[in-house]
């Protein structure tokens, strides 16, 4: 048996929002995540970085049980939200996903109008009592994602007619409309221009006052700008977790250093 890999840095925290212990993920027989221990702090932004295919998305999807939708995928280990085990078969995944929202790597707007996309979650969870409130909510969410000005005259046109970057912001608006406690963002800025990226980063900053955010990103500048802590994944293992400033100025692990200086990935 191989020695269990020990993450360097400070993966653990006092009183975390989410606690992950010993998490492993398998696709059929192939292991994609190896024994990850990680705490995610309350109202903090943590970014996950690492080379393509290292398992960032897979790990993120464990946190709201999205891996359930993949038949061959199996998640082991202990995952907690506010001390409650979320990897338990018996918990209500629907409620979990309302509390832990997600923005996917590829924009996936519903084939409905722009308005209906944002209103979708609010309608399902009964967050508003009347049309006026719903209108307000939709406008507010679109404003926060910097999309309102672009779409306010075409709210009832199909969302699939938006550009890729607009669709991605729409998906963020759709996720925050449900008012989740934790937001998982899988490369939310991969299709955005610098201005829209700045808007989304501002939004992340603003949201982190009240929400916990996990963001996967390939841009180290972005990780440095938005997150308090940074986790570096490599081939399914969590190599290093530290304060963002420390990771980018003085990484402890050699692999982290090679990645951030551009020698891997």
């Amino acid at each position: 048996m191989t020695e269990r890999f020990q993450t360097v840095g400070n993966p653990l925290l006092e009183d975390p929002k989410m606690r992950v212990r010993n998490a492993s993920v398998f696709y059929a027989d192939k292991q994609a995540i190896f024994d990850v221990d990680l705490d995610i702090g309350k109202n903090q932004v943590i970014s996950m970085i690492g080379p393509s295919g290292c398992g960032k998305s897979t790990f993120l999807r464990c946190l709201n049980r999205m891996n359930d939708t993949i038949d061959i995928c199996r998640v082991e280990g202990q995952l907690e939200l506010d001390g409650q085990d979320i990897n338990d078969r018996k918990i209500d995944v629907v409620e979990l996903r309302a509390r832990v929202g997600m923005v996917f790597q590829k924009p996936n707007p519903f084939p409905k109008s722009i308005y209906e996309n944002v209103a979708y979650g609010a309608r399902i969870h009964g967050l508003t009592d009347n049309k006026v409130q719903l209108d307000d909510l939709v406008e507010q969410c679109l404003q926060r994602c910097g999309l309102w000005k672009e779409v306010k005259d075409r709210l009832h046109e199909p969302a699939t007619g938006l550009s890729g970057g607009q669709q991605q912001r729409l998906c963020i608006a759709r996720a925050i409309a449900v008012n989740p406690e934790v937001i998982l963002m899988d490369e939310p800025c991969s299709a955005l221009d610098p201005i829209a990226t700045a808007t989304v980063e501002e939004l992340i900053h603003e949201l982190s006052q009240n929400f916990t955010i996990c963001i996967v990103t390939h841009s180290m500048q972005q990780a440095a700008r938005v997150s308090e802590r940074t986790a570096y994944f490599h081939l399914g293992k969590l190599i290093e977790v530290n304060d963002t400033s420390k990771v980018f100025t003085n990484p402890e692990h050699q692999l982290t250093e090679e990645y951030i200086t551009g020698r891997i990935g």
Partner: protein
Amino acid sequence: MSLAPLALFLISATAVAYFIGYLRAFKIAKPLGGVRNLAALPTYYASMVSLWALIPGLIVLALWVALDGAVIESLVKASLPEEAKYLPADKLGLVLNQVALVAQGLGDISILGLEYQAAVERQMRLTQLSRDALPLLVGSIAIISLLIGLRSVTAAHNARYSVERLFNIALFLCSCIAILTTVGIVFSVMFESWQFFQLVPLSEFLFGTHWSPQIAIRADQAGASGSFGVLPLIVGTLLISAIALLIAVPVGLLSAIYLSEYASARVRNVVKPALEILAGVPTVVYGFFAALTVAPAIREVGDAARAWGAENGVVWLANLNVSSESALAAGMVMGIMIIPFVSSLSDDVINAVPQSLRDGSYGLGATQSETIKKVIFPAALPGIVGGILLAASRAIGETMIVVMAAGLAANLTVNPLEAVTTVTVQIVTLLVGDQEFDSAKTLAAFALGLFLFLITLALNIVALRVVKKYREQYE
């Protein structure tokens, strides 16, 4: 000589031509420094040469087969004795037929008379000539065109382009055949219907409430005195189809949703083929199931209900009258028959909805049924509508079940417990047995056919509209 050896010859010429063309392409490529200096790959040259060997020969063969009989006939006509030349057209045809028969040795010259000997001999000679000349002609044309094809195997000639163009033409011709056949059928039906409307006014046909074509053939009555009101048939058709859809759409759609969204792979692998077997049961089997099992069962339930109603003083139940052939029985069985049309197509389109949309919905905390209702179903709607309309046109066109279970009585009623009849069933009954081709009764079948065609056409147009509207909205 029959056509089979000739066809075999053409096919082998094609194969040989392919081979020669291939070798030739390599041969001219060699001095140039390799295949890459040719305008197209050697296989394209080979295809081009083989098409040259095949197509001209094939065209000549087809033309010959098509025209050969007519040409011989017109030549033979010239050698008929004087008096035969002034016969009316149908008699002349008969005589020519007899000449051909005698020439084949299937009859004796005495049935025509000796003065026809010249014509018979001419017929024999021409047939023999045609038989001998055809292989020679086709063979030499194939070989000549093969050589022409070989000559155009040059480094500069872009064979890929030629092959592509020919392929295009072939595809175009195939689609033409489909369209021309349809147009032909429509026109012939329209022509016969037009004759029908000479006998029966259009307004009577469309708005008449009484259908009893039998009267029209009685010798002592003129053609137009039968009643040809199509309304009872239309109402019957729509009633039965509506009952069928009322059963097939919910059952088919819900089972499709179950199969694609909820069922485990194991269940799915058993249930889906089982459902599709339903589509393979011959309709006549459904027909006697409807007539012998379902219709009597409905009648028994009806009788029991009537008895109960009479006892307990429920007047409308006491007056209930269930006939032994009912629209309900036919409609129910037809509904079962078309379930697979709805379920199989809906299942396919639901499966085609991308997983990312489901993920998006689950990620917002939607339950499975909310996701189905609000995301998957709307996204799959165009395909589902398509499936339903296919099932509907199937129901409207279905004949066998109705003949057996719903009867032939053209009642104008919307009561599903009474016997009704449909357009297709009437077409069948009009044409069964010996008919005169120009009686109103026979022609009525064409008018009904045209009518049915227009209905299904309208249905399809509506379907396309609906689908397009939702496409625009959802894509």
